[in-house]
């Protein structure tokens, strides 16, 4: 019987398998950041253990870092003194702990200001470290992003981070597989972000639990690597730890020539292997969901979980329209928190803040899309707009293309790389009661700052919303 992509990667990484036990899975690449690693390093020290494979481990500073006051790229920012961007000593302590731990245990680190610093899920693919067929983990749920290149990549907790540091393996139960088949073609003006929001709305925030999702079909094959990264990134918002797209020519073209991609004879050997990875024609999935891309339009969220999304052209739903009592109660709570009334047109929702960035939509293609909408236009006076590149390399590329000038001419703020306003751990936050249109991945209560209200959108919708001051698509301008 044929095997799935996920099954092939799994089988190739089983170190040990025993009846009644989880498989012991080898991990090819371990990504670290400052938030979920300090307690893991403490655990190693307490047990006098080393990092088994520092050469398969890489760290970056992203969650806590300010996105202003950084001089780079190429000039690492100091923790203390006049050149330090930190205003929060607690954040600084956490970043300092990462620097000390990486120095002590011999782990490569890209600090703030470094030319290769950025959000962990942006720099992995960018450096060519993320490759088809690998197993990749990180103490961050958006590790699913790396599945866009055909790697089995999933988020783990700090105890598991410590386990991987010490052993380069993880005991894991073999996951079930779900095919998400997207037929047809996305209409003009409909993006990968709209597609994944529509998928999550369809299967629900828990629909993917226990599964690895494999995105398939003509609409997925037609996506750029940036689009695939956006789709896989939000697999976790459907409850799935991992999402995958089979490697193809888009993948190979993306990787060729990157710093850590194989070259010469190794490239040919790698290609031969990568071409064996796609799911066999007779492979069976435990579950399949089918969508027609041609029916999709721009999507936005109205509630407080990513499954609470609708086409921009529709209205805030009436909680009474939900048959399931739990969904009804969740909708009631969400509308109260979001301060929205049933029946209100989504296009009438006014925002204070627009955020373009994050591991979901902080790549160069996302910035180009937002800039294309803003060129020759201006951000509404009532709106502040932050544009935060996902990495310093993205920032440098954008500046080379003149995108920074488009953003600043439009009245948006042009920042340094980091997680920024995605998660309220650094100075970029919403205040209580403020409302954003955000290209990030979570609209949870308080996610972008205590009391803040979030509408998840694509970069194109974010830019159009910044211009009009209320939720809008470029076609509305």
């Amino acid at each position, binding site marked *: 019987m044929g095997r799935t992509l996920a099954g092939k990667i799994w089988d190739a990484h089983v*170190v*040990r398998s025993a009846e*009644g*036990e*989880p498989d*012991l899975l*080898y991990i*090819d*690449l371990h990504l670290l950041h400052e*938030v*979920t690693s300090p*307690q893991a390093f*403490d655990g190693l020290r307490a*047990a006098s*253990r080393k990092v*088994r494979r*520092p*050469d*398969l481990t*890489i760290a970056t500073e992203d969650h806590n870092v300010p996105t202003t006051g950084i001089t780079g790229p190429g000039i690492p920012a100091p923790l203390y003194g006049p050149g330090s961007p930190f205003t929060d000593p607690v954040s600084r302590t*956490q970043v300092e702990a990462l620097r000390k731990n990486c120095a002590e245990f011999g782990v490569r680190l890209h600090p703030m200001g470094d030319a290769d610093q950025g959000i962990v899920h942006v720099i992995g693919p960018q450096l*060519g*470290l993320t*490759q088809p067929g690998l197993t990749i983990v990180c*103490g961050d*749920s958006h*590790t699913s992003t790396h599945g866009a290149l055909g790697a089995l990549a999933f*988020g783990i*907790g*700090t*105890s*598991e981070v410590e*386990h991987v540091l*010490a*052993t*380069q393996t993880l*005991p894991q*139960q073999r996951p079930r597989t779900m095919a998400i088949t997207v037929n047809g073609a996305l209409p003009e003006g409909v993006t990968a972000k709209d597609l994944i929001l529509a998928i999550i709305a369809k299967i629900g*925030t*828990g629909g993917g*639990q226990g599964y690895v999702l494999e995105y398939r079909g003509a609409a997925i094959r037609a996506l750029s690597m940036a689009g695939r990264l956006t789709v896989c990134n939000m697999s976790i*918002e459907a*409850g799935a*730890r991992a999402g995958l797209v089979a490697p193809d020519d888009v993948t190979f073209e993306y990787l060729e020539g990157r710093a*850590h*991609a194989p070259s010469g004879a*190794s490239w040919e*050997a790698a290609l031969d*292997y990568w071409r064996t990875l796609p799911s066999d024609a007779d492979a069976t999935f435990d579950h399949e969901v089918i969508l027609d891309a041609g029916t999709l339009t721009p999507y936005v969220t109205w509630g*407080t979980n990513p499954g609470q999304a609708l086409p921009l052209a529709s209205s805030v739903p009436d909680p009474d329209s939900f048959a399931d009592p*739990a969904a009804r*109660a969740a909708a009631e709570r969400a509308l109260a928190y979001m301060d929205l009334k049933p029946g209100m047109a989504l296009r009438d929702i006014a925002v204070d803040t627009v955020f373009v960035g994050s591991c979901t939509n902080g790549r160069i293609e996302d910035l180009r899309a937002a800039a294309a909408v803003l060129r020759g236009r201006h951000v509404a006076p009532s709106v502040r707009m932050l544009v935060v590149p996902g990495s310093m390399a993205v920032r440098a590329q954008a500046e080379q293309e003149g995108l920074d000038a488009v953003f600043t001419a439009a009245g948006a703020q042009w920042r340094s790389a980091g997680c920024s306003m995605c*998660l*309220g*751990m650094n100075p970029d936050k919403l205040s209580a009661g403020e409302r954003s249109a955000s290209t990030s991945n*979570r609209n*949870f*209560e*308080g996610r972008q700052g*205590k009391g803040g209200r979030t509408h998840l959108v694509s970069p194109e919708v974010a830019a159009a919303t910044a211009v009009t001051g209320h939720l809008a698509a470029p076609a509305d301008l």
Partner: protein
Amino acid sequence: MEPFVTHAGRAVPLRRSNVDTDQIIPAEYLKRVSRAGFGEGLFAAWREDPSFVLNQPQYAGATILVAGTDFGTGSSREHAVWALTDYGFRAVIAPRFGDIFRGNSTKAGLLPVVLPEAAVIALQDAVEADPGTEVVVDLDNRVVLAEAAGIKAPFEIDDYTRWRLMEGLDDIGLTLRHVDDITAFEHSRPSWLPVTA
């Protein structure tokens, strides 16, 4: 890790679905570099509401949380588990859990118990009617009991995880018993795989 065999205590009904880990412990609390003291951040935003269930005196000292479906979705932050255990919880009962949260719980000595929605609602009803109701989470026999309310709800958990929790075993120690297998595997890896060094 503290072993978990059976636990008897009082329970708190949290009648909300989709309780994501950002609600369990907001990001602002994640800046600490130790594992201690996260209980003060547990449900920090919701606890500002005096009527929130954890603020109700009849549930003070409860050690079992009975929540709606999809508990612990979202962020992988194990701090959510540390917040619950630091606050005093030993078990969380829900119809479904976020995968990463569930895994993190079993690494940190918090027992996630999956029960059918009807059983969860029956437990919530019972502890609302009488907050003093004793709830027993028996991992050994894989059953949740609230005898005073006539509730006996069996649950499933795989043998391996149950054994690890009951013994309070350290996963790393278990894995390192197989270090020769790991080394042998490493010798078989293709030479073109990426390295960060």
